[in-house]
C-alpha cells in the first residue's frame, strides 16, 4: 500500500523517474543559490532575472522552434548581459543594485516582447512559460544535471569571498579584489539555475524552487552552512512530494512542487526554531545570564 503510493509511481513510469531526477538535480543547484540571494537581500532579483531571461529564450524559440540549445543559449545570453550590466552599473555609479537591475531587466523584457510581437506568437511558447517537469528528455536532463554540478563547483570556489562580500563588503575591498569577480560569478550562477528551472517549472515558477527553500532554511539555522543544507533538503523533498501529489491527483506538476515548498515554508514560519512565530509568542523563561 505505502509502496504503491510513495515508490511505485517512480518504479513503474519512466517519465516520473526523469522528473524526480530533474527535480532533485535542480534543488541541489538552485537552493544554495537561493540562500545567498536571500542573505544578500536579493530575494526578488531571481524573479527579475527570470523576466530578463524570458525574452532571450523566446527569441531562441522563434528563430529555431522548440530547440533546447537555441532557447538555452538565448536565455543565457539575455541573462548574462543583464547580470553583467547590472553588476557593472551598481559598482561604478550611484545607482544601487536593485535600481540597476530594474532598468536592465525591463529593457530586456521590452526588447523580447517587441521581437515576439513582430514575429507573431505561438501557443507552444506556453511550454516555456510554465515548463513541464513530466516531459524532460535526455538532453534537458543532462543539461539540468550539468548546471547543478557546475553550480556546486563554482560555489565551492567562490564561497569564502562570497560570504565575506555579503557580510562586510568594505573589508573585502581592502583585502582583495576577489569580491567583484565572486559576485559576478554568483550572478551568472543565478542565471544558469533559472534556465535549468524554467524547463522543469517554467519561467514563472523557477524562482520558487530557489527562494522558498532558502526562506525555510532561515527559520531553522543560525549559520550559513546548515541553512544551505536545510534549504537543499526541503527543496528536494518538495520535488518528490510535489511529483507524487501531481501523479495521484492530476494537478500540474510544477505548481504542485512549489505548493509543497510553500506548505513547508508556512510550517517553518509558524514553528521554526529561529524566529518562528510560535517561538516568538512563547519564548520560554529568560535565562540567568
Amino acid at each position: 500500500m505505502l509502496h504503491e503510493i510513495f515508490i511505485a509511481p517512480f518504479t513503474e513510469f519512466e517519465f516520473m523517474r526523469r522528473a524526480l531526477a530533474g527535480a532533485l538535480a535542480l534543488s541541489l543547484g538552485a537552493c544554495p543559490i537561493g540562500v545567498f540571494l536571500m542573505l544578500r537581500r536579493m530575494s526578488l532579483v531571481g524573479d527579475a532575472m527570470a523576466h530578463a531571461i524570458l525574452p532571450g529564450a523566446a527569441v531562441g524559440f522563434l528563430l529555431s522552434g522548440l530547440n533546447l540549445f537555441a532557447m538555452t543559449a538565448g536565455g543565457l545570453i539575455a541573462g548574462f548581459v543583464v547580470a553583467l550590466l547590472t553588476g557593472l552599473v551598481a559598482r561604478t555609479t550611484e545607482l544601487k543594485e536593485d535600481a540597476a537591475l530594474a532598468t536592465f531587466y525591463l529593457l530586456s523584457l521590452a526588447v523580447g516582447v517587441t521581437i515576439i510581437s513582430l514575429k507573431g506568437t505561438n501557443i507552444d511558447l506556453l511550454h516555456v512559460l510554465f515548463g513541464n517537469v513530466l516531459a524532460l528528455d535526455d538532453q534537458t536532463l543532462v543539461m539540468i544535471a550539468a548546471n547543478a554540478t557546475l553550480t556546486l563547483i563554482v560555489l565551492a570556489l567562490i564561497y569564502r569571498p562570497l560570504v565575506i562580500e555579503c557580510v562586510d563588503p568594505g573589508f573585502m575591498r581592502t583585502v582583495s579584489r576577489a569580491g567583484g569577480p565572486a559576485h559576478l560569478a554568483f550572478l551568472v550562477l543565478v542565471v544558469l539555475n533559472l534556465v535549468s528551472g524554467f524547463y522543469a517549472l517554467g519561467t514563472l515558477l523557477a524562482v520558487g524552487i530557489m527562494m522558498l527553500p532558502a526562506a525555510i532554511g532561515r527559520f531553522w539555522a543560525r549559520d550559513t552552512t546548515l541553512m544551505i543544507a536545510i534549504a537543499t533538503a526541503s527543496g528536494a523533498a518538495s520535488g518528490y512530494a510535489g511529483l507524487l501529489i501531481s501523479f495521484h491527483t492530476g494537478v500540474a506538476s510544477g505548481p504542485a512542487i512549489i505548493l509543497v515548498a510553500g506548505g513547508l515554508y508556512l510550517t517553518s514560519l509558524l514553528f521554526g526554531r529561529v524566529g518562528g512565530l510560535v517561538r516568538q509568542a512563547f519564548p520560554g523563561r529568560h535565562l540567568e545570564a
Partner: protein
Amino acid sequence: MTAALRFRNLTLGYDRHPAVHHLDGAVETGALLAVVGPNGAGKSTLFKGIVGVIKPLAGRIERGDPNPQNIAYLPQAAEIDRTFPINVYDMVAMGLWRRAGSFGGIDRASRSLIEQAIAAVGLSGFEERAIATLSGGQMQRMLFARLLLQDARVIVLDEPFNAVDAKTSADLFDLVRRWHGERRTVLTAIHDMDFVRANFPETLLLAREPVAWGRTASVLTPGNLLVARRMCEAFDQRAELCPEEQAPALAPPGEVARAGNQPVP
C-alpha cells in the same frame, strides 16, 4: 627613518569638490599619529584615500610598502550586515585573509592565532555568538581582533572609540599601544583632544587643508584649533576652479606646516 606614507600635494574629494586640499607631508614608519579636526575636515576622506577606496583628484600618495594588504583599515561606520548568520569566530578569522585567501585552510596554528586575538580583545566565550547579538562595544572589540590578525604594518583607524565606553576604549587603546611598540604605523582619527594630548606623540590637524602637523603639543594650540574651526565652515557649492596646481614645499617632519592653497595674488 623611512616614510610609511608620503602625501605629495594630495587633493581628495567628491564631485571635484576637495575634501582634503593640497596635503603634503610624510608619516614615518612606526609613527603613532592622531588625525584631528572638526566634522567635515576630511579625516575619513584622507583615510579612504590612503587605503585606496577613493582616488586622488590631484597629487598622489606614496606608500612605503606597495602591497595594499599591508594596510589594515577600520572604517568609521563599517558596512557590516549585522543580520548575516555568521559568528564571532568566523568574523575574526577573516583577518587571516592574507594567509589563507579564498582557498587556504585554517590549520591548527591559525586556529590558535584566532583564539589569541579573540582573547586579546576580551571576547573569549563569545566565539559562537552570532554577530547580530553583539553590543556596539563588543562589535568594536571583534573588529579589533580582526585587525590584530591582519598583521598589517600600517593600521588606519577612523574614530575607533566613538560610541564605546571608557573601559572598552582603554582596552582597545592598549592594543594600539602594542602596535606602536611593534613599530607599526598607526593613524587614528579622533575627537577627544585631551586623549590625544595624553597619548599621541604626533598630530595632524586637518580642516580640509592641513592646518598644522607635528608634535602634538605644538599642533593643538588654541590658535590652530580656532583656525581649523573657521576653515571648515565654508563649503561653496559654486566654487571656482582651484587656481593653482603648484606643489608647495614639502614640510620637514616634525615641523608645523601650513601648506596649502593661499589665494593667488
